[in-house]
């Protein structure tokens, strides 16, 4: 693993090359990563894979022009800086563009469990294989109809260093362990719908219990999807459990809350600040430097400090996410980055959230599900068109709920509109789930959705 000092020296060398080549400002980021992954396939352990790589990204401003180049060869750092300048010089100007001002150095504390570092060494391979095998066996033993298509167990470490000619250096190191299974249940000639579940943790000791819970959820989803029949066509209620909220609503919504989407006209939400865009009781917060138990680097992709930002408060839109470039492009005088530049060294910064939480409601999930008729959407495979909000797709592994009794359905689609769905949230569960370390979400009940069953 590359040392922090060596990465700082590399970044400063690339920055000096960029400035010498004509850059007015330069920012260089280095991501040194190493990982070990145990892959599962076809109900068996498939392969162990290890990797070790440093990626460099150089962003420069020449006058009112930006350029970016990235590569993974330390021997090519000078050329990388020069190439970023060449790209900037060949690009038309955009008045007012500047790199974010960084004040001073921030060398943040490591988020590294020493146990994870031990597992990254060759002598840790057997322990990882053993846990992958226990996870696989747990799923297969839970129900004889289970089959695992693929799965993985991995440990990784990332050392990130960033230097900017605007006045600061940043460094942070983190490690994590994660795992998951992807597969389905088979019953005679019947093939059930795919499901996936998994988790990730910063502490090795927390991973196996988390994977056991994820594996049990995974088995329930796979087996529960067997026996699905076409349901009923109607316009009415859908029930969205916590682990489906992102793919149905939040992934699109958070894209629309980016200043880039607003400026580009893809999002109508820029004009709605201070207005109700969701049902009362729905509150969404970007969690800044991470949720409890899964801390993130305290600075974003541009080195700007991360902080929590309420986006929607009791249904009212309160904020839009900005990175440095979008702050420069904003028509609001004095707009600053909100610390929401995402990405790694292999690409220029992009606006987006790093971690999200939706406030819990007051109704137990079981009570939200006690309705006359609804479709429980356990997985959504479809499209959300951001500008219009048109939303349509297939319900996977879903259930038709009638008077509180659920039966699996197949070949069932839903259709509606994202913006209307936000306003039509009629219930938020009291329970929330931490998903993948970066989302803390409740389940939702949503009204007035078109449900179409085949046949």
């Amino acid at each position, binding site marked *: 693993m590359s040392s922090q000092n060596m990465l700082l020296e590399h970044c400063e060398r690339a920055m000096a090359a960029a400035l010498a080549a004509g850059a007015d400002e330069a920012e260089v980021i280095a991501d040194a990563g190493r990982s070990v992954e145990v892959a599962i396939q076809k109900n068996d352990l498939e392969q162990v894979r290890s990797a*070790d790589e440093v990626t460099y990204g150089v962003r420069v401003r020449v006058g009112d022009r930006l350029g970016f180049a990235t590569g993974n060869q330390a021997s090519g750092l000078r050329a990388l800086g020069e190439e970023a300048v060449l790209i900037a010089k060949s690009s038309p100007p955009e008045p007012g563009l500047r790199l974010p001002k960084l004040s001073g150095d921030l060398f943040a504390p490591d988020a590294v469990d020493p146990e994870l570092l031990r597992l990254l060494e060759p002598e840790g391979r057997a322990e990882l294989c053993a846990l992958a095998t226990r996870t696989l066996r747990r799923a297969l033993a839970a129900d004889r109809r289970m089959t695992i*298509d693929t799965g993985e167990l991995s440990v990784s470490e990332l050392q990130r260093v960033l230097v900017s000619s605007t006045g600061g250096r940043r460094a942070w190191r983190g490690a994590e362990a994660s795992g998951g299974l992807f597969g389905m249940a088979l019953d005679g000639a019947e093939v059930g719908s795919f499901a996936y579940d998994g988790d990730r943790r910063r502490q090795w000791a927390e991973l196996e219990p988390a994977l056991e819970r994820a594996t049990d959820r995974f088995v329930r989803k796979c087996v529960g999807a067997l026996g699905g029949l076409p349901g009923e066509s109607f316009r009415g209620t859908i029930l969205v459990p916590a682990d489906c909220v992102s793919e149905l609503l939040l992934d699109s919504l958070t894209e629309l809350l980016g200043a880039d989407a607003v400026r580009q006209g893809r999002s109508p939400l820029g004009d709605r600040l201070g207005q109700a865009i969701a049902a009362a009781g729905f509150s969404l917060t970007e969690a800044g430097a991470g949720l409890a138990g899964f801390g993130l680097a305290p600075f974003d992709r541009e080195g700007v400090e991360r902080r929590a930002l309420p986006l929607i408060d009791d249904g009212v839109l309160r904020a839009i996410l900005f990175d440095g470039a979008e702050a420069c492009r904003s028509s609001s005088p004095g707009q600053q980055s909100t610390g929401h530049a995402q990405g790694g060294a292999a690409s220029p910064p992009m606006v987006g959230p790093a971690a999200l939480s939706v406030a819990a409601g007051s109704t137990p999930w079981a009570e939200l599900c006690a309705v006359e008729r609804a479709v429980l959407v356990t997985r959504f495979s479809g499209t959300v068109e951001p500008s219009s909000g*048109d939303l349509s797709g297939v319900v996977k592994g879903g259930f038709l709920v009638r008077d509180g009794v659920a039966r699996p359905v197949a070949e069932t689609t839903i259709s509606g509109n994202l913006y209307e769905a936000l306003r039509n949230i009629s219930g938020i569960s009291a329970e929330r789930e931490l998903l993948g370390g970066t989302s803390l979400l409740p389940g939702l009940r949503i009204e007035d959705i078109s449900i179409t069953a*085949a046949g």
Partner: protein
Amino acid sequence: MTHASPPLLALQQLRALFKDALQHAGSDELVELRYHKKTLRSVSAREGRVERSLSRGREGVGVRVLAAGTWGFASTSEASPSALRRAIEAARANAIASAPYRKELALRPPPIALAVGDYAEADVDEEHELDERVALVVGLEAAARRHSARVRTASSVYNELRSDKVIVTSDGADCSVRLWRPELKVSAVAEHEGQRVSQAESIGATGGWATLFRERAEVLAERAAATAVDQLEAAVPEGGRATVILSPALVGLLVHEAVGHTVEADFVQSGSVAAGKLGQRVADARVTLRDVGHSPHVAGAGGAEPVDDEGVLTQPATVIEDGILVGYLHNRESAARFGVAPAGNARAWEYADPPIIRMRNTMIEPGDSDLDEMIASTADGYLLEGARNGQADATGEFMFGAARARRIQGGKLGPLLRGTTVTGLAFDVLQTVDAISREFAWDLGSGHCGKGQPAKVDAGGPWLRCTLTIAGEQR
């Protein structure tokens, strides 16, 4: 330039270096060394200026070792003798560490004639300066905005992926492979009375600009803008089962998502819906479906590769012949298990990715109908065009988004409707096919397939009439 393609001489020197490194491999082991340098140059435009311009290069060596009855994989970003030795040792150690936990040992693939020599797809040395690329995207973005006052914003992005590989294995592969894949996308957002609709059009190819721009680039901008504007006042289709005529792009999504994934041999072994169906009728007799490493019917398919990442020379893989399921897609190991010859479907995205079973260019062979006749003979249905995203399930149930829909009644096309999602069970839907056109197009060349790692693929076919379910409105 940092990211210039390595000259052929350098690739040949790497072949020699790799052969030296393999001298130390054990005789009972299979060792694969794959150097891969991938370069992306991308420029995008919005509001009359360049939004983003970047260059990305990534290179290194992926090492796969079959030892102790299992595979190990390691990668290094350095192509030196010492780094190669360390990576081979790491891959070997990874294999040995996992062997005790593996229930069924991996088979050593039987010997076959692997690729030897220097391979390249067409136009691999074509170059376009940044000024030319900037002019292209700025011009197209402006063309989309000019289409109508209702176009609020537009954007365009041009990417070119250059790929240079060297593959040397201990059982005979010794080759270099060079590819160049340009792609272009134009998007438009239209607005009227508070309603917004966005639309995108894209193309991609393996080869130069003459291949990429089979039709004028401006046509893409005009089509994206016109569709966005026209859809502002379009109605949502009614949900339910319907007769549809699918465009070549949507046929591509159907064969890739709904059939292609279910016949990948790794998934077949896990129990996909295609398992155990070899020799059975799964489609109407008009349907013949292949996955190919080249580009039949029309040049430039975006997933073309002369050699796969195990060093196998690519061959057509016939999946459905006259409606009968006749084959799966294989890597060397699964081909040996099924007792067939591999056709070159083992692909890796970048050097640090191990090769896995993937599609390349997937298609239905053209038929003998004419699109106009197909429309005229449809009493009640929809014409669906323009691919959005798509996914398939273990059950064979698929969904994909159609960007544009038009109702057909009494053999006549009606007004434009909003885009929608369609779904069905793959083999059931293919049994309902009752007309296939002579016209053929590759039309997913700007797309990527995701299966743990991305892959550049293409898909397409003729216009095809079948029956499936539309996710529309319940009134």
